């Protein structure tokens, strides 16, 4: 079981594919260090083994080192999911001393001009290369994460080559997942079928070549799939996601779901949230499923897919994920692909306050 600790929504980058919600939490609403320490303790007692510090940019929190040290002292496996632009020599040394186990570094593209243009952060790519070097020099395993979409899919080969050159143990090639900002920008991001085939081919060949040396994890895009992904390994099954202001969510996109009162760790213990809360029980297991899924032999493999996607596309969070070819709403995926084909490439960059029109 894993805890995803979204420490903050603040981030110096502005990736248009960010899956954070459009309404981002303000700094003033963020949990305090002491609150996070308590949550980490509750997580360890609940049997959580891994904590993923994410965001926004988790390194934007000055107390990150303290939290890593605390988690580590509890025996938790500690992982940081970062853009790396704040990972200086000093920060690396402090994290290492605090007992960090793994760092996942995200890249926006294979090289600087395009990467920096996309993240809206000039010089960002160069800082990431420095960060990767520091991680490897520290003797830590490096995961290089690349999010692919229409505007960079051609360069997936170069991305893998970069991961290799940086000494990554693991490369993650992830098609954009369309939640939050990414959904808003879908037309400008959703790749064509030809692009998808290109990425598939490059990844398959690289996997074969790098087998046993570098693991390549590949996240396929739902929009071309016949079966949905097991979102978060099943609702309330493997993960607890805590938002910067302390809301406990079965998945980071779940805040968009209507009719839910997500409990906050400020009021309720993690154990109660996990075991008793309506939010975590509602779509847990198979009983909530529509007949279509309940009768299907994949119901405990994909758990009916993603609830947020069902809501966003089919208008009903309790429906079969439209990514499934059996879904009566499956045609919506194809329609989205058609709409994105040839659409303008303009992006709405992720910002803390843009939507207050």
């Amino acid at each position, binding site marked *: 079981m894993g805890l995803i600790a979204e420490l903050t929504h603040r981030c110096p980058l502005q990736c248009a594919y960010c899956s954070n919600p459009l309404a981002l939490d303000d700094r003033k609403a963020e949990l305090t260090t002491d609150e996070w320490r308590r949550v980490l303790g509750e997580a360890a007692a609940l*049997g959580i083994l891994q904590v993923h510090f994410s965001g926004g940019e988790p390194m934007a929190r000055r107390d990150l080192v303290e939290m890593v040290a605390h988690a580590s002292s509890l025996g938790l496996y500690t992982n940081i999911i970062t853009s790396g632009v704040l990972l200086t020599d000093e920060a690396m040394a402090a994290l290492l001393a605090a007992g960090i186990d793994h760092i*996942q570094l995200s890249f926006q593209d294979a090289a600087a001009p395009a990467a920096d243009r996309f993240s809206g952060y000039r010089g960002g790519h160069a800082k990431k290369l420095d960060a990767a070097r520091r991680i490897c020099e520290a003797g830590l*395993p490096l*995961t290089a994460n690349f999010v692919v979409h229409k505007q960079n899919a051609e360069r997936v080969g170069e991305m893998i080559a970069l991961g290799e050159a940086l000494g990554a143990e*693991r490369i993650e090639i992830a098609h954009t997942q369309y939640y939050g900002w990414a959904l808003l920008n879908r037309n400008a991001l959703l790749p064509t079928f030809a692009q998808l085939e290109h990425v598939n081919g490059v990844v398959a060949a690289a996997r074969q070549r790098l087998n046993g040396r570098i*693991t390549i994890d590949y996240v396929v895009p739902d929009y071309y799939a016949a079966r949905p992904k097991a979102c978060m390994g099943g609702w309330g099954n493997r993960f607890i996601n805590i938002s910067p202001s302390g809301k406990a969510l079965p998945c980071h996109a779940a805040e968009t779901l209507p009719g839910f009162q997500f409990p906050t760790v400020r009021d309720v213990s993690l154990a109660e949230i996990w075991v008793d809360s309506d939010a975590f029980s509602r779509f847990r297991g198979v009983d909530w499923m529509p007949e279509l899924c309940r009768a299907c032999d994949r119901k405990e493999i994909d758990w009916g897919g993603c609830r947020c996607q069902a809501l966003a596309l089919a208008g009903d969070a309790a429906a079969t994920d439209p990514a499934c070819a059996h879904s009566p709403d499956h045609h919506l995926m194809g329609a989205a692909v058609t709409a994105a084909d040839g659409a303008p490439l303009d992006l709405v960059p992720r910002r803390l306050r843009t939507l207050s029109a």
Partner: protein
Amino acid sequence: MAAVPTFRRGVKFRFDAVRNAWVLLAPEKLFMPDETAVEILKLVDGTRSIDAIVDDLAARFDAPREMIAEDVAATFANLSTRGAVQL
């Protein structure tokens, strides 16, 4: 086989008191090794070769050496492909 298996960087094999079970923690991954795999992984110390691990198990468990060797090879092949073990 003379190869010496080691856990890759960032991989931790430890006992979890909450589950009362051994767990293998890797970047973004969690393995719950079965009983056989646990016995095998307990012998991974960065010095023992695959052969030495098979010998050790063959001496302690009542199963043909060949079968144990097969289990050991399969376990390491699997965990190597999935990035937890280096051979």
